């Protein structure tokens, strides 16, 4: 077929601008995910090592997370307004918009855990319930996997992320039971125990947010809104 006469060529090249901008947004969301992953790791470390300076660093760094999220939202809003995306393009932008909101919220949970680390450091030392570092590690792995699924637009990987959320929930229940036991056995350590319970609670919530990103990926891949954690 004569190239010049090919009707499919009438819009050829018009996507270059859009594709570049979309790639830019994706890169920013990945950077946001990496920042939050790092913040979570640092907060977990601050918790077990009673490192208040490290916890401070996590709290300071959150400003950059918020700023990046707002930048992403602006980029996406501009793309929607100027490019009027449809089909998979609009789904992708909406998924990225929602994922960046979830990441920002996860950053807040990391900050909350850092604050709890500082409070715990101000109390007489008590052993950190071993499930908490486990939860923190799984959350990070899940977050990493969810970001991969988002980049690869892999529905299967997204479902895998959601399935592992059960592990986090199970560990959280276990923390709760241990905390109840500690409260009755060692009431003098009630503050430390409650701090730990809250830290586990934040991690459990964070895990749910990771599952939400998995749902964004399923929406992006299929166009269907599905509850992966019913």
């Amino acid at each position, binding site marked *: *077929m004569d190239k010049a006469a090919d*009707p*499919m*060529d*009438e*819009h*050829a090249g*018009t*996507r270059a601008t*859009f594709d570049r901008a979309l790639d830019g947004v994706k890169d920013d969301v990945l950077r946001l995910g990496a920042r939050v992953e790092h913040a979570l790791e640092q907060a977990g470390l601050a918790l077990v090592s009673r490192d208040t300076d490290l916890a401070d660093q996590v709290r300071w760094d959150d400003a950059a997370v918020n700023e990046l999220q707002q930048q992403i939202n602006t980029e996406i809003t501009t793309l929607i307004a100027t490019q*009027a*995306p*449809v*089909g*998979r*393009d*609009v*789904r992708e932008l909406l998924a990225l918009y929602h994922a960046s909101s979830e990441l920002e919220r996860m950053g807040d949970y990391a900050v909350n855990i850092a604050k709890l680390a500082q409070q715990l450091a101000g109390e007489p030392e008590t052993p950190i319930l071993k499930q908490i570092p486990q939860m923190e590690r799984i959350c990070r792995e899940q977050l990493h996997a969810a970001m991969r699924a988002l980049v690869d637009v892999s529905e299967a990987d997204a479902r895998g992320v959601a399935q592992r959320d059960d592990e986090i929930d199970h560990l959280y229940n276990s923390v709760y039971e241990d905390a109840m036991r500690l409260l009755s056995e060692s009431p003098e350590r009630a503050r430390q125990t409650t701090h730990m319970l809250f830290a586990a609670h934040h991690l459990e919530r964070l895990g749910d947010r990771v599952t939400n990103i998995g749902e964004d990926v399923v929406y992006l891949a*299929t*166009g*269907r809104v599905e509850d992966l954690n019913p």
Partner: protein
Amino acid sequence: MTESGDPVTVDTHPNTPPMGEQVHDSAPTIRRVDSAAARTAERPASEGIAALAADNAVFELDELSCYYGAFRAVRDISLAIPQNQITAIIGPSGCGKSTLLRSFNRMNDLVDTARITGSIRYHGVDLYADGIDPVEVRRRIGMVFQKPNPFPKSIYDNVAFGPRVAGFRGDMDQLVESSLRRAALWDEVKDKLRSPGTALSGGQQQRLCIARAIAVEPDVILMDEPCSALDPIATLRIEELMRELKEKYTIVIVTHNMQQAARASDLTAFLTMGDDRAGYLVEMGATDEIFTRPQHQLTEDYITGRFG
């Protein structure tokens, strides 16, 4: 419709009174297809129709192909156009959108070499059957074109022309006013009805053409890129008008402007061109579905501007 076993009659449609009451005294009667059984026997139920044909289908196309001489412009299209809805036809240049639209009111009859195979049923009536009067078809199924084309006459006469030709003997002033009102043009022209229609702005001219189409009490309004010559504001006015008109009419619009299809239509049909350069239907469905999660990669590629 075809599955129900009930014969479809023209009379059942509220917007199309029986022929005896038409302005055309001498119009030949549009012949009704004898029975649903006969219709289902002569063609296999295609998936497209099975999925979309409801009791409210105005048009049912079955394996429709349109030819200009030996060249097949449109290939094997089966679909149903529902009543009181806006159906948009989109697709790349040359994919046969306009040819398809023109087949709905036999406008292609005016081209010597044009012919069709397959069938188009209008309220169950075979539009291309012997004895169907194409003039009557075009009165019931009006058309608005890409470029506003008012007659070189006054605004009033532009609207009154069709009814006069059709032998309308009622209150012409009233008919002109109501047609202009329904076309959302009355307030702008009521004080200058004797001015030439061609003196209006492009958007006003297009609404005048819509008023002219409405004046003969059609059932369907076909629009062939009605806004491509208009500025964005005039375009939005026409789209707004389409939404009002669909309460009373069925609208089929061909548009190059995908955002217009997305904004203004209820259903969207996507046509593309095969290696034989004949246009064919890729997908038809609810507009919000087509523009957020199309089923076919070809549709996705077209609406998102990914080609090749």
